[in-house]
């Protein structure tokens, strides 16, 4: 088992501890603007709940037959806190033990978490945007209302934005820190440095 250097251990530990923010800040955000909502209305996705202008969003979506968003729609809220807790624990152990393999697993888990979350979001968004109430007041043939996965998209009169919120950015930062530590440990920086020198 290879040990890792002090810098890398600190990076890994910082990355792992920073993940605690996921319990205190929203992870993802969706924002909507329309002529009637110049100030915008939004929704924040937390580790175990939703906040924001849900009532307003639901009121609006009612016209086009979209389902009412509520927390029961997201079974993820029941187990996401354990998953993130587990990954955090792996990170802390990796940092303390200073094992390279554990560090690699930590990054792998973080990347899997990110990909999993995006896939999950996409599947939810697809269902939410396509599975419309047939008794809706406004029906536009061929129109679906799937929110963007990341970035901006115009949906009828609404400009929709989807992207990481505070904790989401911090989690991405954690992954980046671990990645940097891995680069250090595999000597990528050292080789770059040498080549420049010669």
């Amino acid at each position, binding site marked *: 088992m290879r040990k890792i250097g002090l810098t890398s251990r600190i990076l890994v530990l910082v990355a792992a501890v920073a993940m605690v923010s996921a319990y205190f800040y929203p992870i993802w955000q969706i924002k909507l603007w329309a002529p009637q909502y110049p100030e915008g209305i939004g929704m924040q996705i937390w580790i175990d709940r939703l906040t924001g*202008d849900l*009532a*307003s969003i639901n*009121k609006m979506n*009612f*016209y086009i037959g979209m389902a009412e968003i509520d927390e029961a729609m997201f079974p993820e809220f029941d187990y996401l806190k354990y998953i993130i807790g587990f990954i955090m624990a792996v990170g802390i152990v990796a940092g303390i033990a200073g094992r390279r393999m554990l560090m690699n697993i930590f990054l792998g888990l973080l990347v899997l978490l990110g990909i999993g979350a995006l896939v999950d979001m996409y599947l939810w968004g697809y269902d939410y945007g396509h599975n419309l109430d047939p008794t809706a*007041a*406004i029906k536009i043939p061929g129109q679906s209302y799937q929110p963007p996965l990341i970035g901006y998209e115009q949906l009828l009169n609404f400009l929709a934005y989807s992207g990481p919120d505070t904790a989401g950015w911090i989690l991405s930062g954690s992954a980046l820190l671990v990645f940097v530590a891995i680069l250090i440990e595999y000597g990528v920086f050292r080789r770059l440095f040498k080549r420049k020198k010669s």
Partner: protein
Amino acid sequence: MTKSLMFIGSAIFFMIALYSCRPPAPGAAATGDAASRVYVPPGEHDEFYNIVSGGFNGQISVVGLPSGRTFKIIPVFSVNPENGYGFSEETKPMLNTTHGFIPWDDLHHIAISTTDGVHDARWAFANANNTPRVARLDLTTFNTVEILEIPNSAGNHSSPFITENTEYVVAGTRFSVPFGEEEEDVDVPIETYKENFRGAITFISVDPDDGEMDIAFQIDAPPFNYDLARGGKGISGDWFFFSCYNTEMAHTLLEVNASQHDKDYIMAINWRKAEQYVREGRAETVRARYAHNKMDKATHMASSEIKEDVLMLDPTEFEDIIYFIPCPKSPHGVDVSHDGKYIVGSGKLAALIPVFSFEKMIEAIENEDFEGDINGLPILNYESVLHGEVERPGLGPLHTEFDGRGNAFTTMFVSSEVVMWDIETLEIIDRAPTYYSVGHLMIPGGCTAEPHGKYLVAYNKITKDRFLPTGPELCHSAQLFDISNGRLELLLDFPTIGEPHYAEAFPAELIKDKQVRFYDINENQHPYVTRGPGQARVERETEDRVRVYMTSIRSHFRPDNIEGIFVGDTVYFHVTNLEQEWDLPHGFAIKGANNAEILIMPGETLTLKWIPDRVGIWPFYCTDFCSALHQEMSGYVRVSPRGADVPLTYSTGGR
């Protein structure tokens, strides 16, 4: 023949020549770049809120400056079918008086609350001139939240002016009347005016935390006509000044009989002393009935209480409460400069404007420099108190405001102009015609210790040809001047709602971000609130009284089908707007209701009373376009003959 032709020809020539000799009318044009100076681009906000009295419409309008755009009409002393004020069960008590429900009054003056003489803009106060009352508006909701009736008063004109920390709002009577609640006290011959009539000066206390008003005390002043008033500021902060006309004490044909004295008075009241004597228990409790109406924030309901007595202070029992300053002739406005040093009396029939010095007034009082007395109340020597006179200012001076840079601006009703003059030197600096017959004028903060001397607005009584004509009844108007360059530059004419008397303006920043956007439904303590669609229901409370607990939210009422209502039932629609979003009111109206609609703000509950007068199906609907499905927001009530075999049922969407 030739001669007579020549004569006619020369006569016509002479007439044309004479006509063309007519001097040109004063220019009415605004300065070249005026448009850009009043232009507020789409989406941007005005710099000042201007709270403008509506005069005989009993309302207040909210105007932006410099654009002159009207944003809102706030009903105060008049019912407003547009939002149900005075028609809904919740707001009816606001217009209760000892005479019962009064749907109208004449609203003249505005006072915006101050701290240390500077606008804090927590509340606006307004007076009812006809049936004396003072109202308080909350400037976070722009609603009338309190109305206090003033007993022993008639023609509540020198009101609602305030002390510099809004400790008191005053209400001086313009028509003196006999005091009392007993018939033998008030059923007197009019010609016994001098013996039996009295002038009530009312001091209304204002709670510094929640603004609640109450009559602190009344001063039993001589039976003059108290026209206007101003509180002192800074060094003169303990004093209040009232203009008095009809010191002749005439009771008939006042236009002649009340215009005889060369000098009437400005009455100076040391309100600190008066307050102290009241605290010491030296005021008498006298019977005087008045209504006190309050809007409860939590229940959204107004209540009206009739109170029974007031504390009356007889100023002749004290040496140091009231002094009279002689002032030519029938003074209308009395205004105090921003530093509290000068008191400007505008004798509306005088050919000059006297400016009094507060410091000289105190000196004259200390030296007992008196030229007489009224019932033992000293009259100060005119010359001793005078700072100086503005000579030949124009005709009919009415009101003065200040720019905070040492200049005063006075309106001239008869010569229809605003005159700018220097307070120290009393020299006239500039004058500008107004269109026409200007009454009050207003500089943002111009009556406070901190004027924003950028704009001046003149409020005109007559408009004649200034706007597109609309038959015999024309609008009143306001004119905006730029005074920031040391002269009067006309920028804009704009029509006003009703007759604007006084107005005040303050920087929008003071309250813009404190506006209530909607009421929290969870804090709604209305006794008939419906907090969610699941609680919507209809209950027959007695044989002929039905309560409908109704909710409104985009885009349906719940319930929207009601059966089992009988002719002659009193039906209360308690409609709760469940929306929790800004700018989403719902309206409610039902066919045949002989009152008005109600306009319910998000989170609020309002009640419309309806007594169906015949059998049939009666639709109700939302009156405020609320959503793309607004037209669908409607329902039906089935009304059957009394005693018919129709059970009380209600539903929405079949449930």
